[in-house]
C-alpha cells in the first residue's frame, strides 16, 4: 500500500469518526424514545431497546402536558406550520424583489440602503424584543400567529435580500437592457427573465428561512399567546412540566417530532441548497 492510499484511509477513518460522533445524540434520542420508562431506568444509555414501544411517540404527539394543557405537541406543531409557511413565502418573495432591485436597478443611495439591510442581519434578536413587542401591540398583533409571521418576515428580509442580490448580480445587466429595448417593464422583466432563473437561490432562501423560523425559540416565547405558541416553545414546556417521574422517552420523541420538518426539508432540497450556494460561479 502506498503512502497516498494510507493517507486516504486515514482521512476516511477520521471522517467516519466525526460522523459517528455527530450521529451519537440522534442515536441516543431515537433509541430512548422507543424504550419504556422501566427499561430506561434499568438499562444502559447506549443500549438498543429490548422491546420497541411507540407509546412515547403517541403521548408526545397527542397527550403530553405542556404546562396545564395536555394535548401533546399536535396543536403547537400546527401553529408552527401556520407561522413558518407564510413567513418563509413572504420573506422569500420580498427578498427576491429587493435583490432584483439592488442587483439590476441601481438607484441613488442604493449602496447605503443595501448596507442598512445587511446590517439588519447582524442585529441580535434580544435587541429588538422590546421595540418589537411595542410595535406588535400597536398593530394589534400581539400574541397572535400573524404577529409572529410579521416578526419573522422582518427579520428574514435581510438574509433573503442578500441571497437574491448576490445571485442576481451574476446575471449580466445587458439582459435587462435588452428586455427594456424589447419593451418589457420592471415586473415583466422580473417574472419573465429573472424568476425562471432563480430556482437554486429560491431553494437556498426557503431552506435557510424555514430552518431559522421553525427552530426559533426566543421570538416564539416572547411574542406568542396561549393559543399561538410554536412547537419549540411547547417542547420546552413539555420537557419542563414534570409530574413526579421524568418521562425521558416522551421528551426525546417530542424533540424528534419538533425537529422532523427541518430534517425533511434538508433531505429533500439539500442537494439544491449546496448547488444554490455555489451557483454564483456558474454562467447562465
Amino acid at each position: 500500500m502506498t503512502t497516498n492510499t494510507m493517507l486516504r484511509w486515514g482521512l476516511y477513518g477520521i471522517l467516519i469518526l466525526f460522523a459517528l460522533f455527530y450521529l451519537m445524540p440522534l442515536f441516543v434520542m431515537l433509541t430512548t424514545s422507543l424504550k419504556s420508562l422501566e427499561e430506561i431506568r434499568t438499562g444502559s444509555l447506549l443500549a438498543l431497546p429490548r422491546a420497541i414501544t411507540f407509546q412515547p411517540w403517541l403521548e408526545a404527539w397527542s397527550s403530553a402536558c405542556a404546562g396545564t394543557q395536555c394535548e401533546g405537541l399536535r396543536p403547537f406543531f400546527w401553529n408552527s406550520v401556520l407561522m413558518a409557511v407564510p413567513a418563509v413565502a413572504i420573506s422569500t418573495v420580498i427578498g427576491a424583489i429587493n435583490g432584483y432591485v439592488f442587483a439590476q436597478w441601481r438607484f441613488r443611495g442604493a449602496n447605503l440602503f443595501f448596507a442598512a439591510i445587511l446590517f439588519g442581519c447582524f442585529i441580535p434578536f434580544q435587541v429588538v424584543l422590546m421595540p418589537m413587542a411595542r410595535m406588535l401591540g400597536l398593530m394589534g398583533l400581539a400574541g397572535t400567529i400573524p404577529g409572529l409571521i410579521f416578526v419573522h418576515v422582518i427579520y428574514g428580509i435581510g438574509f433573503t435580500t442578500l441571497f437574491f442580490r448576490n445571485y442576481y448580480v451574476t446575471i449580466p445587466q445587458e439582459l435587462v437592457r435588452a428586455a427594456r429595448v424589447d419593451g418589457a417593464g420592471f415586473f415583466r422583466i422580473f417574472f419573465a427573465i429573472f424568476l425562471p432563473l432563480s430556482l437554486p437561490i429560491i431553494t437556498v432562501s426557503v431552506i435557510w428561512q424555514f430552518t431559522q423560523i421553525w427552530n426559533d425559540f426566543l421570538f416564539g416565547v416572547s411574542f406568542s399567546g396561549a393559543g399561538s405558541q410554536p412547537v419549540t416553545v411547547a417542547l420546552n414546556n413539555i420537557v419542563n412540566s414534570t409530574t413526579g417521574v421524568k418521562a425521558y422517552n416522551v421528551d426525546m420523541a417530542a424533540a424528534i417530532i419538533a425537529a422532523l420538518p427541518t430534517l425533511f426539508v434538508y433531505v429533500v432540497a439539500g442537494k439544491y441548497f449546496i448547488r444554490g450556494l455555489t451557483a454564483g460561479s456558474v454562467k447562465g
Partner: protein
Amino acid sequence: MPILEIDHLQKSYGDTHILHDINVSIDEGDFLVLVGPSGCGKSTLLNCIAGLEPITGGTIRIGGRDVTGVSPKDRDIAMVFQSYALYPTMSVARNITFGMQVRGVDKATQAAKLAEVARQLQIEPLLNRKPGQLSGGQRQRVAMGRALVRDPRLFLFDEPLSNLDAKLRVSMRTEIKKLHQDLNASIVYVTHDQIEAMTLATRIVVMKGGVIQQIGTPAEIYNRPANMFVADFMGSPAMNLIPARARTEDGATRIEIDRDSGGPLVITDPVARQLPAEIVLGVRPEDIHEATGQAHLPGHAPEAGGEVLIDVVEPAGADTFAVTHLGGTPVTARLRAESAVRPKQMFPLAFDLSKVSYFSPQDGLRLN
C-alpha cells in the same frame, strides 16, 4: 430628413464628463460606425441613443421626433448587444418573439415574422433550442433576429462581433454589410476595431475621451485624418508620424527628416505650403515605395526620398513590410512582395507627397 440627429449632447456622472458636445446626424440608410479606443465613450453614446442612459444636456431626435426623455421601448429602435443578451430560459423562437409578445402583437403576425426572420438568417433548425445550446455565431444570429423582427427606424449594434473568433468575425461582418444593403437599414454601430469601421461604415465617427475627433466617410477619415490621433488609430499598420522640419523655398516646401546615418533626408514638396518650422509628417506605409529613380507618372507629385538603412524586413505574403528609422521613430513601408529589400542594408525609399498629411506637433491638428 435625417433619421438620427444628435444635438449638443452632454453626458456626465457627477463631475465626471463622459461625453462633450456631441453633434452627429445621419440619413436614412446610413451605416454610422462609432469607433475609438476603450473608454472613449462610444458605448455610452450608443446607450444614450437607445435611451438606456439618461443624458445631461442636448437633444436626440430619431426620425424627426424628439426622443430625449422617451423610454427605450418607445424610441422605435432595436439593439444588438456585445454579449448577445439572449434570455437564457427562453427558446430561440421565444427570444425573437418576446418583444412582440410584450407589445401585444397577435399570434399570427408573430409566427409570420418569426418565420421570415428565421429564413433570412438561416436559423430555422435552431428555433426550439435554448441559447445555452448554441455556438457563438448562432447566438449572434439569434441576437440579430431579435432586432430584425422589430423592423425599427434605427438599429443599434454594440460591438456585436467582439466575442467571436477571428474567422467567424470576418464572415459575420460580411453578412452584416449584406443585411444593411438588402434592407437599406439605418444603423449605428459601435466597435473598437478600425478595420470593422472601415469595411462596414458609410460614415465614421472617431472618438477619444468623450470628444468627437472626426466625422467623415471611410475614405475621408483614411486619407485626410483631422489630427494625429485619427491618423494613428485608423489603418493597419498605422500611419507613420515622423517629426520633421519644414521651410518654404523657391515656391516649394522643403522637408528635412533626421536620419540615423548620414545627413538629414531632404524631400521637396512642389507646393508652397504655409507650414510652421516644426511639423509632423504623416505618411501611410503604402505611400512609401521603392524609389525607381525614373520620372514620376503624369499628374502625380514627383518622387521624393532617398537612401535609408532598413532595420527589419517582415514578409507578409502579399506585401513585404520594411521598417527603418527616421526622425527618431520607426517608419514602416509597404513594399511589393518581390522587393529586393534586405535588413541592415541601405535601400532607396520614395514618399508619395500627394498623399501625405502634415500635422502640428503642438496640438496634433492637420495642417494641409
